């Protein structure tokens, strides 16, 4: 049985599954129920000067009958009094001393940071998470992503927090930047103990076709929100991987962004995350999903022979490289297993209209398409649209040529000239 215990920059938890700072961590009661359900840690709903929220606040993006493939919100930080939050935080820590309780914070002035950090530490939190990521509402007031987008400001506020805190400081990064490395390195320079990413992506989730108003609807208007849920996972994986593989970046990462099950969690860990944080999937299905996450990850680790989470961290990000480093001589072609084909011809139409015109139909006798393997560019599209697992495989072709990347190719061209 694999050891699922987690240690993020000294913050220990029974497993790597934390609840992200969001509505599921709005109150001590919720967090205690989450811990009872099996969650290893929780990042408290961001604390700061209490605000006033609007109604409505959330929007979902459905796809072909799948609800909430994407999700966004225009909810702000906690709207409950700070003293109530801290009182509850102390109680949670008392009842669950071995679980990680992280205080997520967002205030403006140095004095306010000092004050709120002290109160957090006094309440017994195991770590702080600085919310430099929220892309709606708070950023208009110079907080949240307004900080995360300015590496110098980020570095400075991080250094204040580290100075005032006796517990590890995690900086939560916004994806609303062109490159994630500069803010990541700024957090390191500010002496942060870890980063967490991604926060939500600035977004408009949809438009009401009857009222001609974007969503979510607030009295005839709407505003941009923060996008999250399963659909953002690829963006998050890229950003986590970019930091994990960067030679100067060497603090732990808490991975966030569309994690819905153990597979997603394993992918984030392999891409360099030490643990993961979850929000949308819990908002959709409740705390109970963690049971399968724990069991599934444990089974996967046993199957692959990993004894600890640490053994997995970054195994994939080390293979995450620049396009220019890829082997131009590696070649795969599509191969259709006719015995598994259900004759839907989705591969044919996808290749014909949407890709490289290398799948063809027989004129008679069979509806099973065939691949022109000589011209197949090995793009994967047919295997992606095929509804039958294992029917279309991408077969490696040995072209009898050695490794050659783009740079080497350019050198070869120059030599021939």
């Amino acid at each position: 049985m694999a050891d699922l215990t987690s240690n993020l920059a000294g913050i220990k938890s029974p497993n790597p599954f934390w609840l992200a700072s969001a509505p599921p961590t709005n109150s001590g009661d919720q967090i205690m129920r989450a811990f009872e359900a099996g969650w290893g840690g929780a990042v408290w709903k961001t604390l700061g000067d209490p605000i006033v929220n609007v109604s409505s606040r959330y929007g979902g993006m459905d796809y072909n009958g799948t609800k909430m493939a994407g999700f966004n919100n225009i909810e702000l930080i906690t709207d409950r009094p700070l003293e109530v939050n801290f009182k509850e935080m102390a109680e949670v820590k008392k009842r669950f001393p071995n679980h990680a309780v992280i205080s997520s914070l967002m205030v403006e002035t140095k004095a306010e940071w000092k004050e709120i950090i002290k109160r957090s530490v006094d309440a017994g939190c195991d770590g702080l998470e600085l919310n430099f990521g929220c892309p709606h509402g708070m950023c208009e007031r110079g907080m949240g992503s307004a900080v995360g987008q300015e590496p110098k400001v980020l570095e400075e506020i991080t250094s204040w927090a580290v100075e005032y805190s006796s517990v590890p400081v995690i900086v939560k990064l916004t994806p609303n930047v062109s490159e994630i490395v500069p803010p990541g390195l700024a957090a390191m320079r500010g002496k942060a103990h870890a980063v967490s990413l991604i926060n939500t992506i600035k977004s408009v989730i949809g438009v009401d076709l009857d009222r001609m108003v974007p969503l979510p609807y607030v009295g005839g208007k709407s505003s941009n929100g923060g996008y999250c849920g399963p659909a953002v996972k690829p963006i998050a994986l890229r950003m986590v991987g970019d930091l994990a593989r960067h030679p100067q970046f060497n603090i732990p990462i808490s991975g966030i962004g569309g994690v819905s099950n153990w597979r997603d969690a394993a992918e984030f860990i392999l891409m360099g995350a030490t643990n993961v944080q979850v929000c949308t999937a819990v908002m959709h299905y409740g705390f109970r999903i963690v049971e399968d996450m724990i069991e599934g990850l444990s089974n996967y680790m046993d199957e692959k022979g990993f004894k600890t989470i640490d053994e997995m961290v970054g195994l994939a990000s080390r293979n995450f490289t620049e396009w220019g480093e890829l082997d131009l001589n590696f070649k795969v072609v599509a191969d259709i297993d006719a015995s598994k084909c259900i004759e839907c011809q989705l591969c044919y139409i996808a290749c014909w209209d949407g890709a490289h015109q290398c799948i063809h139909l027989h004129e008679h006798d069979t509806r099973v398409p065939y691949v022109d393997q000589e011209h197949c560019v090995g793009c994967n599209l047919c295997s992606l649209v095929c509804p039958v697992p294992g029917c279309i495989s991408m077969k490696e072709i040995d072209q009898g040529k050695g490794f050659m990347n783009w740079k080497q190719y350019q050198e070869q061209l120059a030599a021939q000239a």
Partner: protein
Amino acid sequence: MTQNYLENLATERSETAITDYKPRFTDLQAVAEANRCLYCHDAPCIQVCPTEINIPEFIHRIASGNLKGSARTILDSNILGLSCASVCPVEVLCVGSCVYNHMQIKPIEIGRLQRYATEYAYEKGIQFYKKGPDTGKKVALIGAGPASLACAAQLAIMGHNPVIFERHTLPGGLNTTGVAPYKLRADTSLREVAYIQEIGVEIRTGVAVGSDVSFADLEAQYDAIFIGAGLGPDSFLDVPGEDKEGVFGALEVIEALKLTQFPAEKYPNAVVVGGGNTALDVVRELRKLGVPNVTMVYRRGEAQMSGYAHEMAAARQEGVQFQFLALPVEYVGEAHVSAVRCVKMALGEPDASGRRSPEPVAGSEFELPANLVALATGQGKLTELFGKISQLELNRGRVVVNAVGQTSNPKYFAGGDCVNGGKEVVNAAAEGKHAAFGIDAYLKEGN
């Protein structure tokens, strides 16, 4: 003023007591099912549909919330899309060809999705079609069944002036009088007829061509004539006692329970003779109307039945009893039948149809109690009626047509059961529409 035939339909009808075996999807069910469709390229379901409805496209439109476009996609190909949704043997057509069958996953319920989309258009009163610019050409159509209705609708869209002559008091053909009510009720059939009337199709009911109006008159008054007359009355076996009370043709029974209150309680024991889908319809209907003992008698074995396996399975589940390899030789009783005397049969050599022909077993006679006998042994041909049309070539009683639905008499076109010998509603719809294009070309040549 267009006649509204729904007003002529009795409200008290036995068929209304029979539950719909494939009820209409709710909005949620329809969208969930539509989202399962893989949206195949050149989909096998389209290829097996006689009217070539673009099924993945209409399903895709249900999923996207474009119900109007979904209904239009269906009706563009098949103006009888509403009835076909419920009447079609989808298990052996579109649903049977769904690629999910290859995955051992439940195929898409195409019929129910089609019903959902077409009923939406009917309920919203969406009429997609109107009469085309008047060509001044008149076309008479014989019989107001699916073939003529599909043909007439298309002719009207093309701007011709179709007039349908129907000997029955209600139009719709077997859709109105002969389809099992758990699939389609008469009122739905008449709603579909009304939809087609709206396009510019005139229907004259209670007029029998060949007696009330002569073919010569039609030929004089119309530029072309379409024969969509279907088949003749139920065939009988020509055995002693067929004139006794309680011995009916199967279509007689079905029509009675669809259009009137059928006194099922008078018949505790029913015997239905035949092995086809009409026989299966009748046995199931009688069980649903509460007849306790319903026995289907068929002269061959179960393996030789022409009825669909899925209908057979349903009949068995509903408590129908089966007497295979038996043939009625006499209807016993006083004025009213009380039993059917049968002889057991044994299968001999294969006949012309490739099926082993049954031979009576000497001395094997037995009696089945029966107060009602329904003969579902096929329908006769309209040979006598068609004999009144000059130069009309028939083959074993069926009207012979060329690739565009034209008969050997160039003014006459034909489609449906009178041509194909008795197939599905969807075949009649396809043939009727197809013939409309043949008629259109013929009328243009005549200019």
